[in-house]
């Protein structure tokens, strides 16, 4: 992102593939209400092995939330209330409409031909972004 400052924007659509991931997604959004979505988001990936096999990960995620100085009780109650369910289901439905089956799946500039499925190396992503930037500049947008 730093390499392409001002030229690239990433819009995140959490696409939960299982119940454990659904809890994590809602927890991240609830952390966002306390102003720490991205910190919680990165923490979920960093500590993935510590919570992703749990059937009910909320307790463990609550413990992690303390490290980020989040209000754990508010986070848990937010997830348990189900307030984020609608938003999560809407994103999932949107992904299913676009035939997203695997994660990560990325679309560059809303072009269905620019669908990237699966993890890519940094070099490859940089190449794809440069390609799209060149195309946009050539078309004078």
């Amino acid at each position: 992102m730093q390499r392409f400052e001002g030229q690239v924007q990433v819009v995140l659509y959490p696409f939960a593939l299982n119940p454990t991931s659904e809890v994590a997604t809602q927890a991240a959004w609830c952390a966002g209400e306390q102003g720490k979505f991205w910190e919680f988001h990165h923490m979920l990936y960093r500590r993935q092995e510590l919570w992703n096999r749990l059937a009910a990960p909320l307790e463990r995620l609550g413990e992690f939330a303390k490290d980020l100085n989040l209000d754990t009780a508010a986070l848990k109650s937010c997830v348990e209330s189900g307030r984020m369910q609608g938003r999560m289901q809407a994103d999932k439905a949107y992904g299913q409409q676009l035939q997203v089956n695997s994660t990560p799946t990325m679309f560059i500039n809303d072009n269905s031909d620019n669908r990237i499925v699966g993890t890519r190396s940094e070099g490859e992503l940089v190449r794809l972004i440069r390609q799209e930037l060149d195309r946009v500049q050539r078309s004078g947008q």
Partner: protein
Amino acid sequence: MSSVQASSVRRYLRRWWYWCTLPWVAVLLRVLLGGVFVFAGFSKLLLPHAEVVHHMQQYQMLPGWLVSITATFLPWIEVGSGTALLVGFCTTPAALLIAVQLLSFSALMGIVLAADIPIEDCGCFGNLGLPETPLQVLMRDLLMLALLLPIVYRQRDALGLDAWSSAPASYEA
């Protein structure tokens, strides 16, 4: 293997061959195998191309450019060869093409199993089928390979375009 075991294996093989080469059984096998390949091809055509590429990349066998070419053409080859076998048209070439595909898939699964590459779902039937492990795919493909033999053997007798186009013999009594 003792001679008793060997003769009992021969007996089972002869029985299997007898049943598989009954005309109605050969038709059933032809429709089944052809149908499986048509289904596999269509299930991949229903997926976005990048998804099919992603399924193939998980095998870590083919170079990037070959993955893309295979993902482009394989669904069409499956649909074409499956349809030809289904209707009994150019049965031998269709069966050979299917045999090549089955041998390739079997070899790929064998390598994946030997190299212990973790694959949760082979992607053989896109989103339309049940997820299959490499071992399940290997066993299924070997079985289908065995079932191709009676199909080719019976192609001119069993219901199909090749059989229909054969004119009756004109021998006198």
